[in-house]
């Protein structure tokens, strides 16, 4: 196994904080929650969400996009175009066989599924779209990126629920280290704000019920947190071996220095209270990166704003990393975009390294006294970041930890 250094050379971001890296990052650094009452969810037990504002499939993707793409694909194509452009790459000239696509997605085209199911019940099977299947299967997001960019190397989707995006990035890094690819487009895309999916999460008790004050609903690490707010979006990274990136004079924004992946093997949805596997994932990622716990200056936490996750995550972070790192959860601003979350957060971690800036966690009014982390709240914090951790955890007990370092 090669230990080649892997660089991030391009970024794309579409989130509730905006379309594009600059808009999203500015809003995330302002620390203002984007959660709103959602008219599309009216009448449901929970009707708040963090959806991407001002996203137009026709403008941001293409004239026929709504005919052939579910929203999770649309958001991902938009982010991927931004990422490839920002990397200074031209897909017309690259060797497509050496370009891979690895995208995390937890759900797939659930809005299409719901719409077509309703149509079948109301108007009969003959009315069901012939495009249902290609629009709903989760792997189609990677397929469309392959078509869009003529990337004919390994092409697949990783599904580890809310860790999917981080799993994709860790897996993509290995394709570069193993010399299977020269370039990988990786990250995650998800659009799960559909009536059935939101209701499913609500029925589990996973969502915040602060319906009358949605802007305060997502409050990771706050003592009064009561659940997450569902979001959507896509984060895409262009990754190359550092030597290749340097040779072509590309910008190197950060290095993907370490990756750790484990499973709780404990419960379908609840984190293992002992957090043995989360700790193991953190330690594995640090060892992979060749850094010690004391080197970590910043953690972009999973921080969903659920009572259980934040307590278990904080305990593991405190135990493995100590109280030192400046911790944030961008879910306070953009909500929880499920399979895209790990990728959106990896993009934010790269931006934090680039700018020397830790965005604040929205809505931390009173930090949970049981949580002894240095949670950045209210204002962004300026600090040099050499080593950062982005951790993600999925239902099913899947844990994925990335260590990103300054180039």
């Amino acid at each position, binding site marked *: 196994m090669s230990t080649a250094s892997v660089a991030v050379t391009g970024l794309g971001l579409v989130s509730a904080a905006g379309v594009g890296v600059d808009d999203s990052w500015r809003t995330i650094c302002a620390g203002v929650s984007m959660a709103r009452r959602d008219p599309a969810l009216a009448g449901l037990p929970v009707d708040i969400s963090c959806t991407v504002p001002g996203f137009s499939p*026709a403008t941001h993707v293409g*004239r*026929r996009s*709504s*005919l052939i793409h579910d929203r999770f694909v649309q958001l991902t194509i938009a982010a991927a175009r931004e990422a490839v452009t920002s990397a200074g790459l031209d897909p017309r000239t690259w060797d497509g066989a050496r370009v891979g696509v690895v995208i995390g997605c937890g759900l797939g085209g659930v809005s299409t599924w719901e719409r077509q199911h309703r149509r079948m019940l109301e*108007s009969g099977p*003959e*009315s*069901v*779209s*012939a*495009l249902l299947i*290609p629009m709903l299967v989760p792997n189609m997001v990677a397929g469309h990126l392959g078509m869009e960019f003529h990337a004919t190397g390994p092409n697949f989707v990783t599904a580890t629920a809310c860790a999917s995006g981080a799993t994709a990035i860790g897996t993509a890094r290995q394709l570069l280290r193993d010399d299977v690819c020269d370039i990988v487009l990786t990250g995650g895309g998800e659009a799960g704000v559909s009536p059935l999916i939101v209701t499913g999460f609500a029925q589990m008790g996973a969502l915040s019920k602060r319906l009358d004050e949605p802007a305060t609903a997502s409050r990771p690490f706050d003592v009064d947190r009561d659940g997450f707010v569902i979001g959507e979006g896509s984060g895409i990274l262009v990754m190359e071996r550092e030597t290749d990136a340097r040779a072509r004079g590309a910008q190197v924004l950060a290095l993907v220095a370490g990756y750790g992946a484990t499973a709780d093997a404990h419960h379908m949805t609840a984190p293992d209270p002992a957090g043995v596997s989360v700790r193991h994932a953190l330690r594995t990622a640090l060892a992979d990166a060749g850094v010690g716990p004391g080197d970590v200056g910043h953690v972009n936490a999973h921080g969903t704003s659920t009572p259980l996750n934040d307590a278990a995550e904080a305990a593991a972070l405190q135990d493995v990393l100590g109280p030192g790192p400046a911790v944030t959860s961008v879910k306070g601003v953009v909500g929880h975009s499920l399979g895209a979350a790990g990728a959106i957060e990896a993009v934010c971690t790269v931006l934090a390294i680039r700018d020397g800036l830790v965005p604040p966690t929205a809505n931390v009014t009173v930090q949970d006294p049981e949580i002894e982390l240095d949670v950045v709240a209210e204002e962004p914090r300026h600090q040099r970041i050499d080593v950062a951790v982005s951790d993600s955890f999925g239902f099913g007990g899947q844990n994925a930890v990335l260590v990103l370092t300054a180039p």
Partner: protein
Amino acid sequence: MASMYDTLVNLLVDRFEVDRAEIRPGITFEDLEMDSLFVVELLVVVQTELKVKIDEDSASPRDTIERAAEMIEAQIAAASSAP
């Protein structure tokens, strides 16, 4: 009453994002960048909106819009004359 050709043109514009200016009787679905999957989807829309069932094997991306309109008309006529 609009001709079947006009009806089909409207479906292509409204439901398939085809530019009206591009459409003429002799143009094929392929020319309008509609592949076989789009043609099958068009048949679903035709069945839902016009209540006419066209077998998917009888239409192809190489058909012209005019021929497709004729096929739909013929199917309507056949259905109405059936016992």
